[in-house]
């Protein structure tokens, strides 16, 4: 490797910082949770997951955690994705294709607007808890 100048060192740091910040978990407030049960994967959840990773990277969002979970129980609506943004209602999206994933990142995460056409009506909380 060639010797660095001050500018090159700073550039290297900026590039890598973005990458390493993803490892920090403290100041991340947005959760994107992709349902990766067998049904979800069969329906294309993996592509959706990849699309989320790429889009979030593209928009330089450092405060997002992408998590995965097992089947959320809505198998006919897979892939399903739950998005939790502070000060916005927790939202579940259904039939999340690669394009929908891009919309979710651009609208819900960046502009803080729901992607209404794909919101899955969330069953009321007590139903889930009594299950």
């Amino acid at each position, binding site marked *: *490797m060639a*010797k660095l100048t001050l500018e090159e*060192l700073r550039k290297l740091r900026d590039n*890598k910082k973005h990458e390493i910040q993803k490892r920090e978990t403290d100041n991340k407030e947005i959760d994107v949770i992709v349902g990766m*049960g067998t049904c979800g994967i069969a329906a294309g959840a993996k592509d959706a997951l990849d699309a989320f990773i790429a889009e979030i*990277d593209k928009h330089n969002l450092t405060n997002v*955690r992408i998590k995965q979970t097992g089947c959320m129980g809505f198998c006919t609506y897979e892939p399903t994705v739950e998005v939790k943004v502070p000060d916005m209602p927790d939202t579940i999206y259904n039939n999340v294709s690669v394009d929908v994933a891009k919309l979710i990142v651009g609208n819900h995460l960046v502009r803080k607007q729901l992607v209404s056409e794909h919101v899955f009506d969330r069953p009321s909380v007590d139903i889930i808890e009594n299950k």
Partner: protein
Amino acid sequence: MAYRSYILVCGGTGCESSHADKIYQNLKNEIEANKLSEQVQVIKTGCFGFCEQGPIVKILPENTFYVQVKPEDAKELVDEHIIKGRPVERLIYSASDDKNRKSVIAEEKDISFYQKQYRIVLRNCGMIDPEVIEEYIARDGYAALEKVLFDMKPEQVIDELKKAGIRGRGGAGFPTWMKWNFTKGATNSETKYVVCNADEGDPGAYMDRSTLEGDPHSVLEAMTIAGYTVGAQKGFIYIRAEYPLAISRLKIAIQQAKDMGLLGDNILGTDFSFDIEIRLGAGAFVCGEETALLASIEGKRGMPIPRPPFPATHGLWKKPTVINNVETYANIPMIILKGGDWFASIGTETSKGTKVFALTGKIKNSGLIEVPMGITLREIIYDIGGGIPNGRKFKAAQSGGPSGGVITEEFLDTPIDYENLAKLGSIMGSGGLIVMDEDDCMLDIAKFYLDFTVDESCGKCAPCRIGGKQLYGLLDKISQGNGELDDINKMEDISLAMQRASLCGLGQTAPNPVASTLRYFKDEYLEHITDKKCSAGVCKDLLQFNILKDKCVGCTVCARKCPVNAISGERKQPHEIDQNACIKCGECYEACKFQAITRG
């Protein structure tokens, strides 16, 4: 490239010795087999500190903290956690003993062990791959060097250290800014040196090793900053050869820094040049003493010489030399970046910042911890350490290793800093913290440390060479039941002579464990001397096992357990121990279910 998940595998010595490397390899193979290499990165990091529960694997972004992982668990972790998104519950730290009392605790921040910790020195340990310089750089690595080289004059660096109030972490707690200032101001030579003391000789201590293993660049960066500040062009790291992993990580780090022009000629294109070499020590405790260490680097026998003159002006090859401990250095980049005022805001009036301790002994969660100065021993032992195992009672904690002393129960709430520890008759030392319970005999502890210092004395001066041996002899005599009351006075006299007349810190502080245990546990000494008893049951010569005739049911268990067949008796008849044959191993005492055997 962006990753979705990160698997951090501990690569500290503790976890490596329980196959962390195999775990790392297996995880990598699994990830590759599942074609996930583009999405999931497997990283080997430095010590997480929670070595007791190692090997540790942490998965991000969920921040799931897996403990006691085995190589064969790799497949399940990848299949379940990474692919299906389900945590592997059986490997999650189960906190049945944890004060937070959740059934399983998945995240690091929920583990009591981590809650009171504050990480400056260990900021990158368990976070970055210590063998990849870019990872250090990404966590603001070499930004302090950059700031110093381009925006600060040497005086300003010293000012910042002064404001920070940082004191040496190697033992004596001397203000770092003063040392640097002496060397900077030294006019006896143009050639100056910067030395890092990584000898770490205290039994039970491994703070410096873990720092070097987990974050070697932080020390290199700080030494380079020291070089710029005092006007030195050459640095040496003196490290014991028993630390192969730390040495290999240091070598890699030095090479990487050189390749990038962060070390070597014309650093970052400036006209400042600085180089660092590693020197291996053979692991003699006395070589941690600064003048002996410098002699050893020069290729001479590692023996202390009288000070003054101090190394700051007459150090390596009689040239002005800054010598600091690993942990002292590891603090410096953060002080430069965040400012002396920030650092000074942590800690107590006289002791700023944090301290790394290696917590060992009779403690549930042993491990490496970093805590703000001023924390109490109670918080360390009960909140972080989880208390004493097996329902035993806390007796004392030894800080400062063979140069230190014990802290007893009544001082559990004293804020820990340099001055308070000195008042209690101990020292901060380099950070070994050994917890003892009611089964530990204080006389035996003192004997253990004296044995160590007698062994490690270089023999150059009489008070240490002869005094140490005499002191040990008296302790031994008392522990065998031959002690006389006057022995205590003798020990006090010898201690005083050693403290006053020894040439170096080793001899001067060697009596401390005796003085300290005498101060707080005189009763225990007297018990050994007058009653010929050791109630902790440690001093074998004073022990006697007896069978209580009325309690013994004659089950024969003890007779079968006894390794030397010292117990005889008919079935269902009271048994008896032949005292001449008994080797005091205590096997029968442990084995009897009827409390029929007494120890005393």
